[in-house]
C-alpha cells in the first residue's frame, strides 16, 4: 500500500501548476513550458511510486520508462517549437489570442 507522502503532494502541485499554465498563459512558449512541467511531474511521480513496488530500490522498468518518456517529452516540445516558429512567421506575434481565426 502506498502511503500519502510529500512526494505525491509535490508532483500533484507541479501537475496542477502545469495545467494552470496551459489554461491561463497566452505566450506560446510558456504553454510549451507548461507542458514540460506536467511531463516532469508525471515522471517524478512515476519514479517515486515505483520505489514502493520493491522495497528500498527503484525497479529497472520504471527507469527505462521514465527515460523513454523524457525522450518523448523532448520530441513533443521540439515539434511544438517548430510550429511556434512557423506561427511567428505567419502572425508576427507569439500571443495565442491572435490564433483564434478558426473559431466560427
Amino acid at each position: 500500500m502506498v502511503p500519502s507522502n510529500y512526494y505525491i503532494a509535490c508532483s500533484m502541485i507541479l501537475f496542477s501548476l502545469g495545467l494552470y499554465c496551459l489554461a491561463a498563459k497566452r505566450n506560446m512558449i510558456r504553454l510549451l513550458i507548461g507542458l514540460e512541467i506536467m511531463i516532469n511531474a508525471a515522471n517524478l511521480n512515476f519514479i517515486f511510486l515505483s520505489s514502493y513496488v520493491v522495497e528500498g530500490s527503484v525497479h529497472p522498468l520504471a527507469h527505462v520508462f521514465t527515460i523513454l518518456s523524457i525522450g518523448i517529452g523532448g520530441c513533443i516540445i521540439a515539434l511544438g517549437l517548430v510550429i511556434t516558429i512557423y506561427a511567428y512567421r505567419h502572425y508576427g506575434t507569439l500571443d495565442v489570442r491572435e490564433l483564434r481565426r478558426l473559431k466560427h
Partner: protein
Amino acid sequence: MFTPLLDALILFTFTTPLAGLIGRRVRHEKTAVATYATFALIFSLMLVLVFYSEVLWGVSFLAEHGSALPPEGASLEAGALSMFLATIFLIIGSMASLFSAREIEGESVTGYYTVLLGIITAMIGVVFSGDLFTLFIFWEAMCICSYVLVAFRRERWESIEASFKYLIMSSAGGITILFALSFVYGLTGTLSIPYLSMSLDGSGGNLMVYAALLMLIVGFGLQAGMVPFHMWLPDAHMAAPSSISAVLSGVMVKAGIYGLLKVLLVIFLPLRGSWQTTLTAFAVLTMFVGNLSALPQDDIKRLLAYSTIANSGYILLGIAIGSNRALTGSMFHVLNHALIKALLFLCAGAFIHRTKTRSLSELAGIRRAMPITGAAFIIGVLSLASIPPLNFFWSELTIIRAGVEAGMPSLSFLMILNMVLSSAYCLRMIQAVAVKKETSTSKKAKEVPLQMLLPILLLALLSVIIGVYPDPFQTLAETVAQAISVRA
C-alpha cells in the same frame, strides 16, 4: 523483434526515405515514394489476411514476450480485437496513401509518406501492445506523427493554428495518461494488462484508483473526441490534407476508443459500477454536441468532423451499456464509421482538389460536373443518415436494440433522437451537392483522375456490400466483442 506484421511495417517506414532517394535519382521521386508506400500498406494487409485470419476469427491467441517475465517486462499480444482494428487501419491507410498520390504536391513528398506510414505503424503498435508501457510509447509516436501531418501544409495559417491547438491539447491528454500510469504502477507493481486486471480486483474504495481511472478516461477520451475535450478535433480534421483527415477521422479516433476499451473493460472491469454512469453521461453529451454543432456548418470538412464526434458518442454509448450485443454494435460501428468517414473525406478531398473551396454553398450542384465522385458521396451521406440498405443502419440498430434489452430504453431513445438530427444535416449535404443549382465554381470542375477515384469507389463498394449483406461482418464483430468480454 516484434510480431512479423509490426516488423515489416517498421522496416517499410524506415526504408521509405531510401525509396525517395532512389526515385530522385531517376527524377520520379513522387511516383517512386507513393508506389512504395501504397505497396507496403497493401502488402501488410495481405500479411494480415493470409497469416492472421485465424486470430481475427478468435481461434488462436498470439503472444510474444520480451526477455523479462510477463508481469514486469514489456510484451506484445494480438487477439481478435487487435487484428480487427489493425485490418481496418491498414485498409484505410492504403486507401489514403493511394489517394494522396495526386493530392500532395511539392518538395516534401518523401517526408509525407514516411510520416503517413509511421502513423499507421504506431497505431498498429498501440493495438498490439500487451502492457501499458508499450502502449504509451506507441501512443506518443502516433500523436507526434499526427501533429506533423496536421501541420503538413505549413505555408497556410489554418494548418499551423490547428496543429498548435492539437499539440497542446493532445499532449496534455498524453501526459494525463502517463500520470495515471504512475499511480497504477505504484499500486500494483505491474503495467501488463492481464496482470493489472487481477491486481486491481479488490482495490475498490482507494482514492488513488479512482483518480487513475478518471485520468485514463480523460486521456484516452480526448483522442476519441469525447465532448468536453473535443475542441481540437474539428480544427485538426479540417486543416489537414483530405487523405490525412480520412486517416485521423476514420481510424485515429478508433485508437482512442481502443484505449478506453482496454482500460474500462479489461483493467477496470471490477469497478464497472463506478465508471458506467460517468461514461454514459460523456457518451450522451458527445452525441448531442457533435450533432448539434454539425447542423449549422457550411464548411464541408468541418461538418464531417463534427459528425465524427457524434459517431464517437454512439460507439462510447455501446461501451457504456456494456452487454455483449452492445459491444457487437460498437465494434460493427467502428468498422462502418471508418469506411464511411474515409469515403466522405476522400470525396470532399476530390471536390476540394478541383474547386479549391470547402464551402458547401460554393460546391452546390457539383454532382453534375463530377458524376462519379458525386454518386459515391451521396452513397456515403445516405449511409451516414442511416438509411436501411446501407451499412450504418445495421450497427446503429444493434446498439439501439442492446439498449432496450439491457433495460435502458431511455438511452436508445436519445440515440434515435440523435439519428434524426444527423439525418437533418445529411439531407442538407445531399441537397447542396445534388439538387441545388450550380455556382460558377462548381460548373468549372472536372472529374478527378483514376488514382483518386479508385479508393473512393472501393470504399463505396465495401459499404454497399456490408449494407446489403451484413451477416458475416456482424458475426465478425460479435466474435471480436466476445473476445473482449472473455479476456476480461
